[in-house]
C-alpha cells in the first residue's frame, strides 16, 4: 500500500503500524527526540507499535533541528 511520509509517497507492505513506517524510514523506534503525527493527530510513542496505518495515510515524522 502507499502512504505519504513527510510529503513523499512510500510503498509499504501491509498490514503495517506506525512503528513499521519508522523502520522503513530507518528511524529506530527508540530514537530520542522524534515525534509522529498521523493525519494531523499526534501518535504517542507508546502507541507506535499498536496504531495501524491504512492506504493514503499522511504520516509526519519530526525531530528537533537548529532554530529560533
Amino acid at each position, binding site marked *: 500500500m502507499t502512504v505519504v511520509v513527510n510529503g513523499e509517497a512510500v510503498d509499504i507492505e501491509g498490514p503495517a503500524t506506525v512503528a513499521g513506517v519508522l523502520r522503513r524510514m*530507518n528511524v529506530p523506534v527508540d530514537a530520542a527526540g522524534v515525534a509522529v503525527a498521523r493525519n494531523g493527530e499526534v501518535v504517542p510513542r507508546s502507541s507506535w507499535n499498536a496504531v495501524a496505518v491504512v492506504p493514503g495515510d499522511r504520516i509526519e515524522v519530526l525531530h528537533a*533541528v537548529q532554530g*529560533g
Partner: protein
Amino acid sequence: MSDDLVIAGERFTSRLILGTGGAPSHEVLAHALEASGAEVVTVAMRRVSRGAGGSVLDVIERAGVRVLPNTAGCYTARDAVMTARLAREALRTDWVKLEVIADDRTLLPEPLELVAAAEQLVDDGFTVLPYTNDDPVLARRLEDVGCAVVMPLGAPIGSGSGIRNPYNLRIILENASVPVILDAGIGTASDAAVAMELGCAAVLVASAITRAAEPVLMAEAMRKAVEAGRLAHRAGRIPQRLYAEASSPTSGIADLRSRAG
C-alpha cells in the same frame, strides 16, 4: 546577592536565551553556547531526513541546558498547537516558544491566531512563552490567557536593527506582571544591553550570534552585555538632562585673579 531569572517557578542564573537557528555547524554552536552562558536554548521541529547526521539535541544535552522548542513556520493556531504537542512528545517538555507568524516577508506575529493558540496551549498544560509584537495591548492579552512570559520583538526576526520602539517596550514593561523577554531584532551587544537597561528580564538572541562573523566571540559579547545591562538597570541610572550638571563641587573654588586693577 542572587538575581535569578524565574520563569514558571524555575530559576536561571543567565538572562540570555540562545536561539540556535543559523549556526554554521553543531561544533560552532556548542562553543557559542558555552561562551554565551545561556541555560535555555531554542530548537525548531522539522521533518526527519534520511541519513541526517548528528543532532542539535546532542549539543544541548552535553551542555546540560533546558531545551525550548519553538513553533516557527506556523501560520495558524491549529498548526502551532499541533507542533507544540509534537515537540512535547519528542522532547518531553511542556515548555514552548509559541510563534504564529502572519507572512514570510515580515515574520511578524499574527495576533489573533497567536492569542487563540496561547489560550489552547495553556489549557493543555503547556508553559507558553509567546513571541509577540511590541503591542502593549496584545502583551496584556497574552498575559491574561496565562502565558508564563511575554516576548515582544525589538524588530523583525533576523533584521538586526535593534529596538525600534523603545516607548512601546517601556509600556509593556511597566504593565507586565510576568517576565518580559526581548525576542528578535537584536543586532549587536549594545542592543542587548539597552533591552536589559530598560528592564527586560532576559533577551533571546539567535541570528546576531549564530550569523556573526565570529559566533563564539559574539556569544561572549552578548553575555557581557546582558550582564552589564542588567546591573545598570538594578543600579538605577541618572536622569537625562539637556544641560550640564557639575560633578565637581561648586563651592570652595579658588580666586585666581591677578593683582592688577
